């Protein structure tokens, strides 16, 4: 039993890394473009299908398929900004939310039309790592290491490059940013491309772990949203921390009781946070 809990804890941490990546993208888009990307999890599903398609239909090597999936999702991010968000930048927030929520319906049904409702996946056998009585799936470990490395790179990008400075300036004060010559549209496209590419990357990490179906994304939209709000909307550090809290809590609970109870626990944690600290773990009151 102890080993099982330790394994669940480890799996929670490993999965938390990937969730942190997803939360980072959602947070970044919210912080910079000031919109809530309701279909963010569905983009992971789309990325998964792209990689699946490149690999099975075009017989492109898997790693290259993954890279192409990441690029394709980056382009889709730009497309979303161009077609959906730009026309609604000055619209009431509710209109933006509805537009992005309807994107869920569009993307899910599009996937169903193109790929059907069957579960699809790329069968991969990844070794299992053993430490005494503890077993870890290497696919989880790779995803975790990849996610942490990516987060590190994103941190450097935001802090050590001029575009990163521009992104942070636009996130905090749009008027001032325009006043020093920053073109907000360039920053918006860049942010959407980054956010989109991240869903492609998360999809690539999920390839050896899951199979995909048209409604695969819904749980990840909810999960990313819970994590982001739990940590404090727009707060990148908060999102990072809460990804692990939620990841570990659900993973351990799933072992102790069931997957369903784990999902309930995540939402109970979320509701509890909203009642005690509506601004989230790391959020500041405004």
């Amino acid at each position, binding site marked *: 039993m102890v080993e099982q809990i330790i394994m669940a804890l480890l799996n929670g941490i490993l999965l938390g890394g990937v969730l942190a990546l997803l939360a980072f993208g959602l947070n970044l888009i919210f912080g910079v473009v000031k919109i809530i990307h309701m279909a963010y999890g569905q983009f992971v599903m789309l990325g998964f299908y792209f990689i699946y398609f490149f690999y099975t239909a075009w017989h492109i090597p898997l790693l290259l398929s993954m890279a192409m999936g990441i690029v394709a999702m980056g382009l889709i991010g730009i497309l979303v900004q161009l077609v959906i968000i730009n026309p609604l930048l000055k619209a009431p927030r509710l209109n933006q939310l509805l537009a992005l929520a309807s994107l869920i319906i569009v993307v899910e049904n599009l996937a169903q039309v193109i790929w059907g409702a069957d579960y699809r996946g790329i069968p991969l056998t990844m070794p299992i790592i053993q430490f005494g009585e503890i077993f870890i799936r290497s696919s989880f470990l790779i995803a975790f290491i990849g996610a942490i490395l990516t987060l590190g790179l994103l941190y450097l990008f935001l802090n050590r490059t001029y575009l990163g*400075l521009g992104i942070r300036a636009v996130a905090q004060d749009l008027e001032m940013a325009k*006043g020093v010559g920053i073109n907000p549209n360039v920053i918006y496209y860049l942010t959407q491309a980054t956010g989109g590419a991240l869903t492609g990357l998360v999809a690539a990490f999920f390839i050896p772990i899951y199979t995909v179906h048209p409604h695969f994304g819904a749980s990840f939209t909810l999960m990313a949203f819970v994590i982001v709000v739990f940590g404090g909307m727009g707060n990148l550090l908060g999102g990072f921390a809460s990804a692990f809290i939620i990841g570990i809590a659900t993973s351990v609970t799933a072992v102790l009781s069931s997957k369903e109870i784990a999902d309930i626990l995540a939402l109970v944690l979320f509701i509890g946070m909203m009642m005690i600290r509506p601004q989230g773990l790391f959020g500041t009151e405004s």
Partner: protein
Amino acid sequence: MLEIQNVTKVFGGILALTGVSLKVGEGSFVGLIGPNGSGKTTLFNVVSGAFPPSKGNVIFNGQAISGMPPNHICRQGIARTFQIPQPIKSLTVAENVMLGTIFGSQQIGTACGLDRAREEALQWLDFVGLKLDPESYPDRMTAGDLRKLEMARAIATRPKVLLADEVLSGLNRDELKDASGILQKARDELGLTIIWVEHVMHVLMKLVERVVVLNYGMLIADGDPASVSKDERVIEAYLGRH
């Protein structure tokens, strides 16, 4: 070099600016004054591109800039400071100024990395005399230091024209001297054209060579400080009819 042609700005049913025309020559130091709500900041907002004029044009170096987005106008060489200084709190003091060097008219650092931009930003911090650690965060700064940072960031965009919006408000006597000294220095050493909105009249009148007065969105006086301060309409605007 900067010509404001018959600019009118309407908000809802309110005329914020009514047919304001103004020509500002290169290297001049112009004070823009008027009672509260007379349209000074609105005029700055129109020139800097925060919003387009309802009517009229702004011509800069022979090119119509009215209606352009503010980031475009900044890159053409018109910078502004804001009435309430607003540094980006999650960026260091140096990084705040670097925004100006990188994204302003010279685009230093977009090709050659951030070190060059940082170097340049440190020079501008030195220029305005801000003696804070450039790697500290601007969350607990005095009003005077905030002004200096605000001006450093605006000057770092390497403008030809600087729109200085109430750079003296809320400052103590020493800080007044520092802040107005920076404008003087920017004009004399960098050859900037400066339009300066200010309520601290005794400092403004001593420094500028020309004063333009707005009242109810209309230009009511334009001349050297001595003659404007004696102008009947200006006295009336400030003190009321007697």
